[in-house]
């Protein structure tokens, strides 16, 4: 159980960033911090961070957002699952190519989230709900490199 603390802290930081107040037009493109951090850990350490971690941190998001219990949990599990399926291929890709793979993964996550939201009765009227996925894809190289520097610095394997 060496340095699980770093993983836990990064997930906590992602949760914090995802409720950080943002000015009005910008919050349409709030990056999917938690999905990105989880995707990184699943890709780097698939034997330690898996579906269960994703599910639990998704539940935490649901509580923070005050949405239906299990909604984000399902979406985060889905992200972790997709990345687990692909991790052996994409962890060797250069970062920009990884970003291209993350686009459909995060896009699917947003679509499922929209679908679940519409079940509980509030459907955003525009296609803007895909913005977070797009913004996250551009941020992916940075998030990924920062986390990998941290991972090597603190010897998390």
């Amino acid at each position, binding site marked *: 159980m060496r340095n699980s603390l770093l993983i836990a802290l990064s997930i906590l930081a992602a*949760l*914090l960033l995802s*409720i950080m107040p943002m000015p009005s037009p910008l919050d349409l493109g709030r990056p999917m911090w938690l999905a990105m951090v989880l995707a990184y850990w699943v890709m780097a350490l698939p034997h330690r961070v*898996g*579906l269960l971690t994703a599910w639990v941190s998704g539940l935490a998001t649901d*509580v923070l957002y*005050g949405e239906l219990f*299990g909604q984000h949990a399902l979406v985060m599990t889905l992200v972790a699952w997709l990345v687990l399926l692909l991790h052996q291929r994409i962890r060797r890709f250069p970062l920009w190519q990884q970003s291209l793979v993350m686009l459909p993964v995060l896009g699917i996550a947003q679509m499922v989230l929209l679908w679940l939201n519409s079940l509980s009765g509030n459907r955003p009227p525009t296609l803007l709900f895909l913005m977070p996925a797009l913004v996250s894809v551009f941020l992916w190289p940075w998030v990924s490199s920062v986390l990998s520097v941290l991972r090597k610095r603190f010897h998390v394997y």
Partner: protein
Amino acid sequence: MVVNPWRNGRPAIKPLFIKGPSLGVRLFALTVLSVVLMVIDARFAALQPLRAQLGLLLTPLYYVAEVPARTWDTFHQLTSSRAELIAENERLRAESLLIQRQLQKLASLTEQNVRLRELLNSSSLVDERVLVAELIGVDPNPFTQRLMINKGERDGVFLGQPVLDASGLMGQVVEVMPHTARVLLITDAAHSLPVQVNRNGLRAIAAGTGNNEYLELRYVGDTADIRVDDILVSSGLGQRFPAGYPVGRVVAVDRDPGHPFAEVKVAPTAQLNRSRYMLLVFSPESAYGEVLPALELAGEQEQNGAQDEGEQVAEPVAAETADQASEESGDAQ
């Protein structure tokens, strides 16, 4: 020497061949679990205690997330110039004087109102108890209009409690945690409330649009007497909000003969995206605690009506239309 492949109960090398249940099975199990949780959460109240406890654990995050904004505020206060402060002070003094003058008038008017209501045998009270709450966070989802406030169950906040700010109605409490609560604003797409035009008493339903700039009036006839700059107040018919608080000002009325109803846009009077402090109202009208479903409300109200004739005298229209209004407005969402 044999190298022990297991260290601290974990394999020292990455387990290539040791596997638990396959990936698909795990995904399936967690998906089913999530769906079950969602259904339970949507249909029953069984998960509320768990949510409240988790909320207690996680709400410190909201305080931490607010730190930059608070620091900026403090910084701004520290660096604002003396002249600015003096000017502000003077302005506030003048405002206070004006308000005090109105208050003097109000005292006599209130007394008069109470006397008149006594004459009418009405049980409705004029004054309500309020609790001041502070905003600690806004909902991260840009498509919903909700706020977090720093008062919760321990302070007596209850589900469905009306929330006001200095200039008008803001919304109602939709989720109560031990020390915090979540407020649904009147502009959320899932919210509507029964209102009345102050000028002539015309009743309507103001529905949120998801945009915090305006509300829409639903089902207002093309010929209805409603004009730009009319003030709308809460009518109290939904039995959720106390009557008589300002809700909005009509900014546009579009009467298109091709449509059965007029399109009326209303700007909320409350400063929904600026107010930092708000008031939680403990009004006699909304003092039914945790009762949420509109059906139960309607039943309760019929009983009340049968028992207490005085109530009906006070608001003759209320008894007839309240059931209908609370159904239409979906107040209890």
